[in-house]
């Protein structure tokens, strides 16, 4: 197992398989799975994003889904105002990170549980604001978007198009995460997670690096939110409830804090399994998904408290 994970081509093989998946699914008439795959991809993006805050810098955030919402609504509002879809995505990333930076500036002095409670509060405030700000968000009735069909040269099915677009975003996110992790910046974050005082007294400006990790997280959430809005062509506050924040935290924690592969596997298991069961067994299954979710949490906590695929440190050549 370890050998497979460390094999240098493993990520590329996984990417190739994932890229071929919608065409295979199309051939066996399981288009439903492509939709599921796209949703898993969105949660992979969210997980990769939260991984900066929670996995690297060790800051608990229970309101992360608010930034997914801000990304989705920014895209929706921008596209309704006539902004072309790709620019709407860029705008979503910028607006989301700006909100995140402002929030970070005000609350990052808090630690641990206090930070968790405040972010949870922010998540609820964001949802309630969206729900009530009728002039901008149309409240609970939601916003409709004009269709955008990217990658139409690859497939005529919008689900396949968005699946592939999301896959590309996940691949980019993985590369970016990986490169940042294995650098001076990543080491600074992990040092802060391990021991904040020792990090500061080793010369790391702790508050800046926390804010950086916190803010970068939102770029991923904003992108995911934008893609979600364009794919669904519809956004409502209902998509961004507290439960979704918990789901993203669970993806990071179950996968293995600070582990990129862990985030991907975490999203695959937690987001992918319930609809797969529903598809394979019966529609009733969806009613049991919280039971299933709890079961996974208990099993992982019992048998793999460090996560399904815990992060491992890079080994250096010492004999030179």
């Amino acid at each position: 197992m370890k050998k497979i994970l460390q094999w240098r081509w493993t990520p590329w093989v996984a990417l190739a398989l994932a890229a071929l998946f919608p065409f295979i699914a199309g051939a066996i008439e399981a288009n439903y799975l492509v939709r599921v795959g796209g949703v898993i991809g969105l949660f992979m993006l969210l997980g990769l994003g939260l991984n900066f805050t929670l996995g690297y810098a060790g800051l608990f955030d229970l309101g992360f889904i608010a930034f997914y919402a801000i990304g989705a609504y920014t895209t929706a509002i921008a596209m309704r105002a006539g902004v072309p879809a790709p620019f709407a995505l860029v705008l979503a990333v910028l607006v989301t990170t700006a909100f995140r930076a402002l929030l970070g500036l005000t609350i990052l002095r808090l630690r641990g549980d206090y930070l968790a409670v405040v972010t949870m509060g922010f998540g609820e405030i964001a949802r309630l604001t969206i729900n009530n700000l009728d002039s901008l968000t149309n409240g609970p009735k939601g916003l409709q978007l004009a269709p955008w069909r990217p990658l139409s040269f690859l497939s005529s099915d919008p689900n396949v198009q968005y699946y592939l677009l999301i896959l590309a975003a996940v691949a980019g996110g993985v590369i970016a995460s990986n490169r940042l992790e294995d650098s001076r910046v990543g080491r600074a974050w992990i040092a802060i997670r391990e021991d904040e005082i020792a990090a500061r007294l080793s010369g790391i400006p702790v508050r800046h690096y926390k804010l950086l990790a916190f803010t970068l997280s939102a770029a991923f959430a904003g992108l995911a939110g934008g893609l979600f809005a364009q794919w669904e062509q519809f956004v409502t506050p209902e998509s961004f409830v507290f439960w979704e924040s918990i789901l993203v935290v669970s993806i990071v924690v179950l996968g293995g804090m600070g582990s990129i592969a862990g985030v991907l596997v975490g999203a695959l298991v937690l987001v992918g399994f319930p609809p797969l069961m529903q598809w394979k067994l019966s529609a009733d299954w969806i009613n049991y998904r919280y039971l299933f979710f709890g079961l996974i949490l208990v099993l992982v906590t019992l048998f793999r408290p460090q996560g399904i695929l815990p992060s491992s440190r890079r080994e250096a050549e010492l004999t030179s």
Partner: protein
Amino acid sequence: MSAKTPSPGRVLLEVKDLAQHFGGLKAVDQVNLSIHEGEIVSVIGPNGAGKTTFFNVLTGVYPGTRGEILFNGQELRGMAGHDIVAVGVARTFQNIRLFAHMTALENVMVGRHTRTVQFLLGPLLRTAAFKNEEKAVELMAKELLEFVGLKALGNELAKNLPYGAQRKLEIARALASEPKLLILDEPTAGMNPTESQDLVTLVRKVRERGVTVLLIEHQMRVVMDISDRVFVFDYGVKIAEGKPKEVVANARVIEAYLGKEGAS
């Protein structure tokens, strides 16, 4: 030994009337002292004498209530902890504070933070400048591991290292920031005589690199062996200073350790 009495260099650190009060408790009060370049200076004193608090004020953990800390003429009081490292003061901790889930090598590489610059774009685009800096950081970290005698353990997670090795790793991490002043808080705590002797040798080697050393030490044998000068703290104030032999003969010092009857 001539190494024990170096010609006093210029003043590196000058502390004037420094105080740290916690409410009514004067943990550090009216401390005046100076340290010269190239010295090894020990701070001793009974438990609760304010030694660690003094170190914490020096390194920016506590703000200090009053007084000045002049390092190369620059005021350290009021500076953030990471900026103090940048001007050349690094430290270790009484209860070891390593980055437990990073390798020994990475721990030292973190210590290099203030002397390196690569930020978001370099790592993301893997620029030549980034790669060169990474290589240089890794090389220096390896050299420092070798310097403290931990080269073979570079890929071990810090938490898995034996106790003595963890203490040395903290020193290597501190040295990675190229400090002019290295502050060691009880470097031999919990060590047996052989390990302590090992550490004494290491501290001397650190001085040979041109680093001035200030340490808190409880083992008198180590203090007598290693120190050019000794400061004695009691109840937050400095009650004596001088060469090790002078200090242990000082009546106030004996009183601080043994009480009035012991002194008479």
